[in-house]
């Protein structure tokens, strides 16, 4: 029962839903077809139609089955575990306890702060990475000497493993004695800040933002290249200065890629784990514990598989709510054809 697994469920269950929708639409077509054919088509056409449909379903079934097993089995196991008393320290009686695990998880001291921290983390990293991403993308869009190298360097943090970057930030940058930040603070005569004890969540947000700004830059930078130069020229002739061009031309052009960035980042930011594990270990107290980390502590520090499973399912529900809201908010913008 490892945490990242259960937290990867939001995506899995989403695609599961898609699959279901797909299957429903196929079956509805099949259900609809006889009605069409009784009025007009000869039976041979109808038979062929049915045969084609059957072949289609046969071709589809292996992947549907694999996906179903892939998702349904772990999901079923998680649901089962969440309903029994199952602690690895007390092997033996795994009796059925109903929703007790859920009750304990939701009333756990860590739950409220875990949920709030998740919100804070996702919200602020999204805000920082989108704003910085837009500004950097617009800046880098202008021609200057060495632009190619700058672009590569801007994107490179994205390729560093979360664990490694968290370690680099912890030991080389934010360390209160030997860190670069501390050296800068001392250079200006200020007292170095012990980031992980004074602003633990802020420090985590800083690290995660550093990792995700490149992603926003990458997407938005490429989007900038498809901005019609003649539109900018037209706006200039219409009397728009750089700021008005940015507001009226560039930002609307970037609306869609920004939506993509927000959607994708949200999915990944909900399950941030390595950065917290490597730097603060969720502390001090519950100050940097998000839901993913809370589930981890339940499962692998307290060995309470039942409670961790219920936590995982609660996280799935929360992630699905977030996904639903996001798709309602932004998805419409994405499917809009232009």
């Amino acid at each position, binding site marked *: 029962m490892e945490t990242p697994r259960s937290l990867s469920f939001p995506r899995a269950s989403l695609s599961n839903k898609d699959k279901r929708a797909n299957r429903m639409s196929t079956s509805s077509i099949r259900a609809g077809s006889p009605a069409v054919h009784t009025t007009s088509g000869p039976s041979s056409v109808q038979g062929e139609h049915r045969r084609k449909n059957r072949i289609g379903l046969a071709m589809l079934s292996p992947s549907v089955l694999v996906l179903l097993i892939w998702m349904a089995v772990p999901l079923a196991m998680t649901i089962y575990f969440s309903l029994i008393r199952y602690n690895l320290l007390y092997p033996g009686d795994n009796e059925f306890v109903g929703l007790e695990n859920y009750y304990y998880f939701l009333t756990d001291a860590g739950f409220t702060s875990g949920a709030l921290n998740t919100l804070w983390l996702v919200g602020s990293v999204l805000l920082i990475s989108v704003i910085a991403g837009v500004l950097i993308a617009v800046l880098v869009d202008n021609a200057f000497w060495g632009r190619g190298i700058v672009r590569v360097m801007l994107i490179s943090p994205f390729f560093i493993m979360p664990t490694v970057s968290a370690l680099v930030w912890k030991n080389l940058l934010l360390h209160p004695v030997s860190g670069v930040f501390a050296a800068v603070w001392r250079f200006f005569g200020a007292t170095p800040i012990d980031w992980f004890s004074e602003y633990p969540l802020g420090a985590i947000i800083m690290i995660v933002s550093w990792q995700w700004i490149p992603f926003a830059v990458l997407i938005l930078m490429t989007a900038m290249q498809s901005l*019609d130069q*003649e*539109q900018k*020229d*037209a706006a*200039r002739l219409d009397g*728009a200065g750089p700021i008005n061009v940015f507001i*009226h031309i560039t930002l609307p052009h970037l609306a869609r890629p920004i939506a993509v960035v927000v959607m994708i980042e949200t999915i990944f930011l909900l399950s941030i784990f390595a950065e917290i594990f490597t730097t603060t270990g969720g502390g001090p107290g519950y100050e940097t514990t998000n839901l993913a980390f809370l589930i981890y502590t339940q499962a692998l520090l307290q060995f309470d598989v039942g409670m961790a499973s219920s936590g995982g399912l609660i996280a799935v529900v929360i992630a699905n709510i977030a996904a639903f809201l996001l798709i309602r908010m932004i998805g419409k913008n994405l499917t809009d*054809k232009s």
Partner: protein
Amino acid sequence: MSDLKIRNLKKVFEGLEIIKGVNLDINDHEFVVFVGPSGCGKSTLLRLIAGLEEVTSGSIYLDDREITDLAPAKRDLAMVFQSYALYPHKTVRKNMSFALDLAGVDKAVIDQKVNDAARILELDHLLDRKPKALSGGQRQRVAIGRAIVRQPKVFLFDEPLSNLDAALRVQMRLELARLHQELNATMIYVTHDQVEAMTLADKVVVLNGGRIEQVGSPLELYHYPVNQFVAGFIGTPKMAFLKARVKGASPHSVSLTLECGPEYTLELDGSQLNVGEEVTLGVRPEHIQVTQSADSPFKVHLDVAEHLGADTYCYVKASTGETLTVRAPGDFEPGLGDQVGLQPDLARCHLFDGQGVAIPKPGAPAQAA
């Protein structure tokens, strides 16, 4: 009043001279067309006038006010772009009012102007649509409307019809001509399509390699091209050029021997030519006739024939390998590979000296160099 004067304008881009010293006067209410092959600098010249490119040297005046270094928006010009460059997320109304909105014009005045422009362009019922819901021709009209709303002194068009299909292009061409009449405005129009140039322009400016080759009315360019480039560029199909040698020259006539055989005498001022000098004879397809092979000194082989219905264009090859295009009647049935004779209309032939400069024809208007 809106006179545009361009004086000795140059544009250097990464060490490459794109506009090599252009002088041009554009008068009030004139429809001026810049035409030339791709890469001749016509679009660059338009962008220099618009202020979208920085001028390297020289100056531009609009009504005696120097606008060379003025911001594009302050020049009293409006431009219609090749891609229309409509703002995709704004409605047609907002697209058209954008410049006025930015300038902080009174709301009622904006509405008035937008509605007026929409009426002229028949866009009334489309004002609340987004550009993506419009057809190509409608987008084109919105782009023009955006220019009209600003009531500029000069309209600039950058190949505005090149993205439209052939039928729509003809229709928009007529509408542009009508618009020019209606607005009575000065318009500068860039195109590589000489049909647009010939049909729309009061004045055509032929550009080549960053220089002006000739300025004149469409018919002036057609009848009196100043050099071989203009002669070859104006007119479809292209004028044919035949190598020849001067046999005798006097102030009233020039006699020559074509490399492919025949000898002709043209009524031109030959005082600048020397006997034996190499010259080029230019003949348009419409000024040459197919005759019976036996009695013509100019014998050619028929290569390809294109039947257009009203006319048949015959592509023929002379004995020297030079090719000519001949316009024949629509019912002309050539046998491919046949030998036929040609009879050029000598009064309408053009003669160019070794440098490709035209020998002036009688009646030619004086060219301001």
